């Protein structure tokens, strides 16, 4: 996205992939090509959403480093710990963090369901 560092994009992609990961019997977001999704999102997202997404990216990447029970940044966590961290954020009493998790989930779903094979895999036709 416009103005984002390559590393930020990598962190965001990792967070989104972890939100809807692959399952043994079904591909998740990691298998979806987002090449055309990013520029479209950058073009239409309002400033508050773009800011929120960037804030989410930094917060969720580095918060596990200081949060008890994790001790390392998100990209260095195992799949189990990533799941646990995201679930914790989704249900935290802190409203802002819950909203960040919700934002991540919405963007992940937008990206997933924009992909025709993913829609078909989940029984959505067309």
């Amino acid at each position, binding site marked *: 996205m416009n103005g984002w560092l390559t590393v930020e994009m990598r962190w965001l992609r990792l967070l989104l992939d972890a939100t809807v990961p692959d399952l043994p019997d079904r591909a998740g977001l990691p298998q979806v090509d987002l090449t055309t999704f990013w520029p479209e999102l950058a073009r239409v997202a309002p400033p508050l959403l773009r800011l929120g997404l960037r804030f989410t990216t930094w917060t969720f990447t580095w918060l596990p480093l200081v949060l008890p029970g994790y001790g390392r940044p998100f990209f260095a966590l195992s799949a189990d710990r990533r799941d646990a961290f995201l679930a914790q954020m989704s249900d935290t009493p802190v409203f802002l963090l819950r909203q960040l998790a919700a934002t991540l989930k*919405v963007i992940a779903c937008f990206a997933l369901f924009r992909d025709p094979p993913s829609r078909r895999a989940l029984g959505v036709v067309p």
Partner: protein
Amino acid sequence: MNVLDGATIAAPHALDCDVAIVGTGPAGAAAARTLALAGLRVVLLEEGPWVQPRDYPVDGFSSMALLYRDMGANVALGNAPMPVLQGRAVGGTSVVNGAISWRLPEDVRAGWVAADPGLEQTLDAGTLSALFDEIEDDLGIAPTQASVAGPKNLLMAQGADALGLEHRPIARNTRGCEGLGRCLQGCPHGRKQSMDLTLLPVACHHGAQILSRVTVAAVQTEHGRAVGVIGQAAGGGRVTVQARLAVVLAASAIQTPMLLHKSGIRHGPVGQNLQAHPGVAVVGQFAETVRMWNGATQGHEVIGLRKEGIKFEALGYDPAIIASRMDGMGRAFARNLDQLAHEVHWGVAVRAHGRGRVRVGWRGRPVIQYNLTPRDVDCIRRGVRVLGEMLFAAGALRVLPGVHGWAPVVTDRREIVRFQTEGPRQPDAYHGAITHLFGTCKMATDPTHAVVRPDFRHHTVAGLYVADSSVFPTATGVNPQTSILALATLCARSILRQ
């Protein structure tokens, strides 16, 4: 249709007309049609694009990117931050709404007139009734047929019957609905009778011109009179429209007060008194396949509690939105997606007592503040309980209230009954959305408490009118499109009388 795409306007562009109308949603379209039929030269300005039904995207993201203001991500700040959903296209929100049509309820009209008897002449019950008849004919408004309802709507009827609540198929402005379930992405077959397919073509046939992708920056005034508008075309050109008789603002209860502020027209409580219908969804999971993205998008409603300010509707939207409301994150969430075709979402909309305001923020963007009252939260809690009971009564195996601080999955009906009294009281525990907005340029006789007069004229600027739901004194408690169409027509008649 006579549409000039602002993307093609790179140089200064000037137009003359009798009436300039800002906005092409139901308010702008109804006013334009009435004025054009009367022989006036009308120019409409629309910030969004003109999109043909065949070009409406299939997926939720692409349609929200193309047809919604700020891709539906604008947020009302306050004690329960909620997204504010508005269309932005030729046809306005009518392109992406659920096509739900309600006459202004008589108890609401009577309440407005009782609070300000000066409204009686404009909002005469007989005049409104005749207008509603015409609108219903024009837009093919009729109850949703069972043949296109789909399971999610039929299940709601079962649930309401079991609880003894009054319910009915929703009357919608559609013709030949095929039950594609894509109203909120724009009907790809043009079955929904949105403004771009109905009133705007009539207006254009009678000489009206539409400028799409032109953002109006200000209303121009001279000696206390509105004389036109200036705007910026997507192609970079400055657009100037001189209006001989009137400027009509029909840009929504958010954009209209914003435009007045930006134009330096700040008389009265402009931008204040924001009222709305906040809503939350409750999810039921059924053993059978439901595929809630199929069938009439919103085809059934429960109206037994309407006079208490609570109304229930079957919901329908793109699977991306359905999925984003599902429980869990990570692999648990991915596994929950197996339930996608088994979910039904029903919504409770509240005629809230909450108030808010709209003001101009950074880079001219709207800052919307809105707070729910404790009474509103009580209504929502009651609504969640009733919806949960209806879902269980209709055969749901599990109910997902979607409320922070309560069990994410409920399998025991007693637990959802308990919700009404023991559910969270803090507003931000609820994940809702706002779809209907009112009152930010309130209509009333007293100029100290209103922005426009009972005949839609601005209290202090001659030749300036407001035609959209900004003028509504209060929320209506029902879907407002038909009321907006009627009041905007009355606004146009008022212009013709001047």
